[in-house]
């Protein structure tokens, strides 16, 4: 395959879109990762709330049992 080794640098208006594309890809990947982590955090929070509710119910049940 013959590659344009000696080709002159791309003009700024054309090179700019490629450079912007590369950096945007990086940012998008980061944002997607943060969104996935946010979803995980929401799940953990929901589970923690469920566990807290169960613990409170058990506590109430113990309190209702006459000594």
């Amino acid at each position, binding site marked *: *395959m013959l*590659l*344009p*080794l000696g*080709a002159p*640098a*791309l003009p*700024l208006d*054309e*090179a*700019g879109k*490629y*450079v912007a*594309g*590369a*950096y945007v*890809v*990086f940012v998008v*990947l980061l944002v997607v*990762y943060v969104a996935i*982590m946010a979803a*995980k*955090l929401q*799940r*953990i929070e929901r*589970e*923690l709330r*469920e*566990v807290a509710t*169960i*613990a409170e119910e*058990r506590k109430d049940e113990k309190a209702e049992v006459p000594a």
Partner: protein
Amino acid sequence: MYGKGLKPLSIATVAMIAVSLSLVFFYAPLDADQGFIQKIFYLHVPLAMTALVGFIVGGVFAIAHLRTDNRKWDAYSYVAIHISVIFGVAVLITGAIWAKASWGHWWVWDEPTLVSFLIVFLMYATYYPFRYAIEDRDRQARYASVFAITAGAFVPLNFLAVRMAQSLVHPRVFATSNGGLPGEMMLTFLCCLAAMALLWVTLVKFELTAKSASGQVKRLRRALDAPAPGGSSRIAPEVS
């Protein structure tokens, strides 16, 4: 306490990325050969180096797991590989964009650097189905560690093989007889490398903190004899 120090680390990472981007676009001179398109170098190469080192670090954690039989190290290894694979995706995409702008092709199959990185990436992409395929958690952790060590040893060998190969088109800018990078470009590059390394460490810590929190909730459920929720992960190792 995986979350300890996460806040200052995150702030340092954001600051370092901001400084690096400023250096890339306002300080580093334009490359005489490639012009503005060379700015991709400051993103693509640090990402690639961090990803490759991350794979090796994953192997080192796997050695610690096999030596101590402590599941914590398996989780470290898993997370290190996981974040490095994400970095690998970014390397492949930014590399393809740079290749298209510089060479007029999205991908060049006879270029050893590109193909070798793709091989390493695909090898690590099999890590997940490999873990999925094993039900027993102890066996899963042991086999995954063996995989991580073997693959981690392959990474530097692969890198050396590529460096020794006579490349025609992929630029060699470090330790070459032509003098390498000029001072401003080298400083910018080193800042970008530090920023990517910090980002990798921060994301690893984030992931470990999330896994730790999830593990603590599961421990609480077990302690309360509460029913487990549906859809829990089988592959991701727990951190308690």
